[in-house]
């Protein structure tokens, strides 16, 4: 029996937006894509809506990234995301810089490691991540361990580089 999509929407929408955001790096774009994924789910009525949504979303994000690379990259860079916590411009700049550092670090991960990490952070279980990525269930822990370590190392390296550059 298909899960109640309204319930999935309520519990998964934000996670899906967050998952997509870390792929397209544009909050509104991420929301658009998440909403389209749900709109498609309403039509297709998949059995496992949650898993299906993340597969569809990942595909859309990939297509979108290709398109964005052609048309919109500069626009995305110009845009500053509003942030609920940081209203002070300095904080905002700081938050932007941190986000960019995380983004750069994520880009340094292998696609598989990154996918596993983003799916875990979106609330997926090891079983779900295994289904999603095609990895063995028993390999998820190792994959996540590696992804986390590389993310932290890359961020640390990035911030050191920044300090050096700033003098």
């Amino acid at each position: 029996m298909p899960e109640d999509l309204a319930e999935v929407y309520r519990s998964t929408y934000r996670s899906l937006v967050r998952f997509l955001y870390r792929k397209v790096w544009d909050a509104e774009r991420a929301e658009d894509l998440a909403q389209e994924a749900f709109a498609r789910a309403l039509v297709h009525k998949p059995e496992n809506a949650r898993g299906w949504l993340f597969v569809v979303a990942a595909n859309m994000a990939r297509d979108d990234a290709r398109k964005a690379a052609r048309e919109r990259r500069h626009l995305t860079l110009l845009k500053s995301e509003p942030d609920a916590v940081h209203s002070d411009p300095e904080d905002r700049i700081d938050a932007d810089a941190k986000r960019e550092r995380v983004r750069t670090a994520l880009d340094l991960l292998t696609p598989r490691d990154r996918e596993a990490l983003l799916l875990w952070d979106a609330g997926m279980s090891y079983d779900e991540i295994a289904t999603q990525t095609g990895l063995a269930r028993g390999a998820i822990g190792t994959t996540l361990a590696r992804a986390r370590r590389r993310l932290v190392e890359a961020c640390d390296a990035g911030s050191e580089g920044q300090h050096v550059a700033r003098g």
Partner: protein
Amino acid sequence: MQEVRGNMSHVDDGTLHAYLDGELALVERARLEAHVAECAACRSRLEEERALIARASGLLGLAQPPERAAPPLHELRRPSVVWRLRVPVAWAATVVLALGLGYYAGDRTSMSAAPEPVAMYSADSSAARDAQPNDRLGLATSPPRMFRTSPQSQAPAQARPLAAAERKQEERQPLVVVDGAPLASRLDTASVGASAANGVVAIRNRDTGAANVAPAPVPAADSASARPTARAALPQRALEEVTTSNAYVQRSDARVALVATQWPIIRRGPARQILGAEPMGVPGLAVRNIRRSPTGEVVLVEQAIDSVTVIQLFQERAENDQYASRTYSWSDSARPRQQAGGVQVRGGTAGTERLARFIGGVRVEIAGPLSADSLNRLLEQVKPIGP
């Protein structure tokens, strides 16, 4: 499955992460715990990995999209797509449509000296000017004319008030949803729609019922990356939500949604796995969400007392306390957001001052915007919430 051989061999990273993520099967979990209890090296590695997980999770938390409420699901229930335009693009597209229409109308005027299209255009442009704070969007007030319509493409006779039949047809046409912030107020007076099917652009003033239909090239919509879609009657809620895209406005009922949003929502199964028991709750209260901590060892059950009051029940295995040197406490992630959302948390820095109680093998802490007395009474009622 990962290898955990009792006390004989050390534990690999993957197994440690699976353990810390609450994703290790019971047997393996027990074996690992037995080993860690005796092996100082693995114990310190466990703490290192715990710190690593917290660190990685914190870094990912820096790359969060701003919190905005989701539009109601039923608004997505439309044939193809709900495709929203960026506000500036929406505004630009509107201006382009209006100008294109005016340009076309101007052409018609010069050719046929018909007064209506000119009147129509000026009425609409003033409405748009009133409702659209273009200074905020930083757009030039007179964008270039981006297209020119072909005079032969449609009969000029349509430059007049929309006949009832046409209007009806237009309402059935897929329209471009242009739900940008400035549009929120503008939609009250005018609706803008473009149909890719026949290339007709209509700008209609609802107050007067005056309408104008003019041919326009579809690329106007395409170039603005809009997709034609059914125009759902956007309720105020959706429009309010979109107004946050430029200036972030915190919605009052979004407050509760802000609490601990770095904690992913999980289902009951994984929660049960983390706790080794059913998740706990106050009977009779609706469960809003079940979440887990980024490190995967704490389950958070959020229950609604009413539409704006949510209590939080933080739960973890009682035996987790033996690894007390937790480098990551939930209060780290939850507190700033709770402050931002105006939700009070008892206890300041450590999160340990919350009211807590053991039920079976589970330690439950309660937090919420209520008096300690009320929280205590609610805590007394807490019991496993059945499936």
